[in-house]
């Protein structure tokens, strides 16, 4: 995930893009939490709604991995392939979200003091 690239694709300023990304992190995590609970409860409707929400938002932000995983979950739910595939994909989605969070935090304007520790200088760019 590269914020600069996504910002460019969405023709947003990086600051705005970052803000939306953070919003997505918050709501997306929430949706995934709901999704997991719904799957556990066997509440198909809730689960489908949560998966749909994650799918749409991540697609808008061009987070294609996440969107694809959420889509797969949504499809499995609609095909009533309830537990077989959902759990696994859900886990991937969760990890994907973490990965996204991590990317996001790494790319966020590092404070001049601590940036050095967190982010080894990139070369070649």
């Amino acid at each position: 995930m590269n914020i600069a690239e996504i910002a460019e694709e969405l023709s947003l300023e990086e600051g705005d893009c970052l803000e939306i990304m953070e919003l997505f992190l918050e709501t997306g995590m929430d949706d995934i939490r709901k999704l997991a609970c719904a799957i556990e409860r066997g509440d198909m409707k809730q689960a489908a709604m949560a998966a749909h929400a994650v799918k749409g938002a991540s697609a808008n932000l061009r987070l294609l991995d996440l969107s694809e995983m959420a889509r797969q979950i949504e499809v499995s739910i609609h095909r009533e392939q309830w537990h077989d595939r959902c759990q696994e994909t859900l886990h991937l989605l969760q990890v994907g979200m973490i990965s996204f969070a991590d990317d996001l935090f790494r790319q966020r304007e590092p404070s001049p003091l601590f940036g050095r520790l967190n982010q080894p200088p990139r070369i070649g760019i």
Partner: protein
Amino acid sequence: MARPIDDHLTREQLVEEVAKLNRELLELEGKQEKTDASRAELQAIVESAKDSIFIKNLSLKYTLVNPSMCRLYALPQDAILGKSDRDILDSHTALLTEEVDRNVLSGTVVEEEICRIIDGCPHTFHTLKVPLPGGGEKIVGLCGISRDITDRKQAEEALRNAKADIESKNRELTDINNQLDHAISRANEIALRAEMANFAKSQFLAGMSHDIRTPLNGIIGFAEMLLETPLDATQRDHVQMIRQSGQMLLSLINDILDFSRIEAGMMHFEAIDFDPRNLGLEVCNLIRPKLEAKALSMTFRTGEGLPARVKGDPARFRQVILNLMDNAVKFTESGEIVLSMDVEEMNETHIKLHISVVDQGIGIPQGKLAYIFEPFTQVKRSTTRKYGGTGLGLSICKRLSGQMGGDVWAESAVDKGSTFHFTALLSKSENRLRGDRINRPARDAADGENRNSQVSGRSTRVLLAEDNPVNQKLAALLLEKAGCVVDTAGNGKEAVTKYTAAPQDFDMIFMDIQMPEMNGLEATKILRDGGFGTIPIIAMTAHAMSGDREICLAGGMTDYLAKPIKREEIARIVKKWSPAGGQDSYVPRPS
């Protein structure tokens, strides 16, 4: 069968007997021939029967024995006939037999199983003894048929044993099954818990990367700042301790994140140009401070033909080398550490680099060499205490190298030192010039673009109905960029309320289809039915679902915006349906 003849018959009895025989003879007269034939037949059967057949008279003397019986007693026929069991068997057995026989003579049919030792082997006999009536009710003797059922008995016994065996096996199986059931339900329970734990872990990790890393960076950063100020020796020690602990924790967090990312196949590898030699030097610079406390020197050598540019993921490449170097320094007290970088293979498009890190440290026992690449393993328990670390470093290296088309392995001799090898398959750089900087396309156009995208004249006023905050925000931003003033609603109901309260305030409605409370189609219907026939209502929905467009248009919506939202699309639609029409000076961004 010969008639039992009792030599102790009284005269009267004899008379009776004769009379009976007579009667029988008379009865049989007409069938003489047949009777003779049956008798001969019967005789033959008795003679050849495998079963022992005998007849005893009222004084329990044998009056008939067949050859089987003789064989059984191992006596000739004459030695049995006219004798009683007392003459043939031991007195104890004879007494028992007599008792039974008397019983039979009193009119009961007796079945008995008796055991006899024959030729030293126990044999079981099943004997049927029936009273033999003379004429009328009178009993004149008994007839016995005895069969050696040893084989059957044994078979039965074997069967019983087998049955018991099976039963006990069955019980065992049932036990095992129960245990299995138990184990399975336990496993399920554990799996469920693990699932939940995993989820909790995911949440935790996600939070960790933010919530822990941020303050941790604060701790480390301020510790570093503090170290720049005048401190006495103890204070300096303590602050250094704080910084070091913080750094350890930070690297642990990073490792765990990396690890779970690799495990989940979420690790992305970039393909950008970098200078491997530079990267090696950089690693050395990062490692150098750690040498100071020890009597260690460090050498970096590059082999012949190492290209100035390769294409790959420099961050991951560096991560592996840094880990290996870090270990080398950690596990070596004195001597030299050598980092080498060589070209192992090359073809038209790819290049395989071989990096080795040689140390003169404590080494690794042969038996442990394979394990150290497993997550969370260290050679000794004491390693953690003495050197710190979690044992994730090498497992991450192993996986990273694997994904870079290479491998990581080690050779080592205890107390002599270790050599760690790392290979990675990289692409050749298309860019031949050393030191070239590859720049991103300039992003300076942003400002001018912004100005261009602003609408001159009155802004289009949009009501945006969208439940998802992310989509709402993105759409709002893009709408604003297209020169709109945006008001938002979180669902269809809210949109209806907002719009109907002040229809004159809006030029256009953007409406998500799937929303809680009231969806976009319902909201549209209410608006259209409520007499708001002209306000453009633009559906926003996933473009993958074909037929959506038709449904939206049939539902009274004006136009259709496909998700994921694209800026050009939004701008086009705003322009198309704005009251100002084509007069807006929106200039689409050149793509």
